[in-house]
């Protein structure tokens, strides 16, 4: 009993700053709305309604949550190791490319083709991540820059594929691939909505991530993240774990790409991930790098994205407000340090007097 209370107390302590950050971000954006002649309350109400207003909208929010959640989990693995993987977009894209390539071009029975395509996606992600990890571990090439560059390179690669070799021959010249066979698509959970079985896969990944941090490998990765020197002295190979971390961190976005192809898109198009990768960075941070926290953070951000377009349609508030809220949320999450330092100072003062 006591343990449960203690746990929930520490949980609350961890969640509190994120909740505060969201509140302040909404407040400040509200001022911006007000100053530009909008009614912030109505805009936010519309935003909320757009995200949760009825079963259909809620399902749509959940559909959007799935990739954000999984990419953010991947990002958080790297962040825990103090590696700044900002290549979620590229890794998501290679996953999607591999998924479609297998689904469309490999003439095997579906029950083999589906798992095979998932494996292909994971492997594609791991290759990209492993490459970045190797460059970092062996050549000391800053992973921030390499993952960022890979985002652009892969984006153009996708553009080439859908305009060239993988273009749908019956697509009237649209830059897109063929649809994957209907039988391969993930089934809908709630008929009439787009919410598909990928949700369960996402939840399984959350559970696995939760357990992962209690395993030896998880422990080693967080040890490497804290100090290379101590990790080495403890017999942990820093280089190996940097590569491993990047592989795991990139495999998850690739899975997200697979899920989205089989769950909603059904084909490849240009610029598939949009701004998922950037959102995932913010979500990972907002969720405190904790799997459970990331679930809630990704739900919130997905609601912003889904509700944001409703808000633009009905209230005439530019969609970019969503980005402003996102940016402000990070700023305020970062700023909580100031608050904590202030608290610490007060504590010390009380000790002195």
């Amino acid at each position, binding site marked *: 009993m006591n343990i449960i209370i203690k746990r929930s107390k520490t949980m609350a302590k961890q969640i509190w700053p994120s909740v505060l950050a969201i509140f302040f971000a909404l407040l400040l954006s509200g001022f911006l709305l007000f100053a530009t002649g909008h009614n912030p309350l109505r805009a936010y109400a519309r935003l909320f309604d757009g995200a949760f207003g009825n079963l259909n909208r809620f399902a749509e929010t959940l559909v959007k949550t799935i990739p954000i959640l999984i990419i953010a989990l991947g990002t958080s693995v790297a962040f825990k190791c103090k590696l700044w993987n900002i290549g979620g977009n590229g890794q998501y894209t290679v996953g999607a490319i591999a998924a479609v390539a297998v689904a469309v071009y490999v003439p095997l029975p579906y029950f083999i083709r589906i798992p095979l395509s998932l494996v292909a996606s994971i492997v594609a992600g791991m290759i990209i991540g492993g490459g970045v990890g190797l460059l970092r571990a062996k050549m000391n090439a800053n992973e921030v820059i390499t993952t960022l560059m890979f985002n652009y390179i892969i984006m153009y690669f996708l553009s080439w594929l859908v305009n060239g070799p993988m273009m749908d021959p019956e697509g009237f010249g649209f830059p897109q691939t063929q649809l994957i066979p209907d039988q391969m698509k993930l089934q809908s959970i709630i008929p009439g909505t787009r919410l598909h079985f990928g949700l369960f896969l996402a939840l399984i990944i959350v559970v696995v991530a939760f357990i992962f941090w*209690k395993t*030896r490998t998880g422990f080693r990765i967080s040890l490497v993240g804290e*100090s290379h020197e*101590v990790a080495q*002295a403890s*017999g942990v190979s820093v280089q190996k774990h940097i590569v491993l971390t990047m592989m795991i961190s990139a495999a998850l976005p690739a899975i997200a790409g697979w899920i989205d192809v089989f769950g909603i898109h059904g084909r490849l198009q240009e610029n598939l991930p949009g701004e998922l990768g950037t959102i995932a960075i913010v979500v990972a941070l907002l969720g405190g790098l904790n799997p459970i926290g990331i679930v809630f953070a990704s739900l919130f951000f997905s609601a912003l994205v889904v509700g944001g377009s409703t808000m633009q349609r009905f209230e005439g508030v530019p969609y970019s407000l969503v980005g402003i809220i996102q940016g402000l949320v990070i700023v305020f999450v970062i700023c909580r340090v100031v608050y904590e330092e202030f608290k610490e100072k007060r504590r010390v003062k009380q000790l*002195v007097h």
Partner: protein
Amino acid sequence: MYLLWIELSRVGTMFNFMTEKAIKEAGKVIEKPLVQMIQIKKTFSGIPANDCVDFTLKEGSVHGLLGENGAGKTTLMNILFGLYEPDSGKVLIKGEPVKIHSPLDAMNLKIGMVHQHFMLVKTLTVTENIMLGIKSTRTPFLDTRMIRNRIIELSGKYGLDIDPDAKIWQLSVGQQQRVEILTAIFKGADILILDEPTAVLTPGESEDLFSILRELRNSGIGIILISHKLEEILAIADEVTILRNGVKTGETLVTPSTTKQELTRMMVGRDVLFNFTGKDVNIGKECLSLDHLCAIDDRGVQVLQDVSFSIKDGEILGLAGVDGNGQKELCQILTGLRKTTGGTIHLYDQDLLTMTPKQCIDNKIFHIPEDRQKSGLIMDWDVQKNLILKNYDSKSISGRFCLSEQRIGEQADTMIQEYNIKTPGREEVVKKLSGGNQQKIILAREMEGDPELLIASHPTRGLDIGAMEYVRQRILDQKANGAAILLVSADLEEIFQLSDRIAVIYNGRIMGIVSPDAGISKIGMLMAGIMETENVGVDA
């Protein structure tokens, strides 16, 4: 007893001091002291580092500030230099009350400080480093030529021998220290603070430093010498202030009749009488043997050359030497963290050179690292997680897939009790513990693995006397358990207390392996790189 050789040199210089002092005191009536610090208080996260400390520095004198590591000496001087602000208390410079908020304020008051870790930018030249702290006459442009000439002039005047165009990283430690001193004088400092200046020097370099300091004192500069070495204070200081645990415990003139016992009592609050048990242990078969080991450091410079020695079970080999003579690299090699360029190492019959760091641990080589905060502990983690760093994957901690939180907790509770670690609980973050208790965490972790070979690098550096005694006793306990121990230390007292044999390392070479009976002067010579005459021809 074994510090006799330094004693002797002191007596020689003391004569000069006396006459100079007499002349000065006759010439002046009442002079205002250069520095007066009154009732200084400074607290770090609730723990007082300085508690109502008074301090006075007179003109043209060397004032020793004596105390154990962690006694608050450096904190007090950082306050004087504006790096910290005191919680309360007053500072007077030349009789005027002042507020020193930053080093800039301090420098404007003509206070210069030579830090223990040099405050020099390694990639810049001597001239550039000195220009950093000086307002250029051609602001906003640099006045390189003028500064350079002045450096040459000053360097000649005080015999500092500094090349103004050398990049800092090209200079030896002793030269870098002289650059620091030059920087201070350049700005016309008449108050010079030196923080443990001899910690990084060989005895010979220390003597050179002392003669420079005397030169400076004679030209009217007041010098504050932070130190925890008694003999140093006796050799050069005119007056001494003693701190213990942040409190001033004494102030006295240094006269030829001042004794070390007197100072020690004020420093540690009692006579230090280490009395260890377990020194007489049967020495067993050979555990570790090194044969003509060679290695290069990260810059590709040869750091170890033909190092050969062996350690037997139940034996402590002391490795004495001034820091930076290859000890660090040797420890890295022995724990599998660094490659060699030649020679062999065997642990019993196994080739140690092919082992990964992990295999070294599995073969029960454990290491108490030199810099415990950087390479021994994760400061942001709690006690229990720091205790499992070496055995997290053993059956005692880890199940089939996951680490067992319950077993981590149980192990922590046992070790906290057994090693008397003072902590509010196993979930306390390590950075909130004292240095002694941090070191105990490392001891617990490294010693519970039942080491075959234990490498202890500066195991008591920065600890208070109590913790020091505890650590040394624990090391002897391991010896009694039959572990082979390599004790790396710059503290000769420690080396002499614990070692069965003493190897001296200088410039990457073993200068000799001697028994503790050989005496301090012999070790001192070897540490300074001086071989005995008959060996000079062999030295290639």
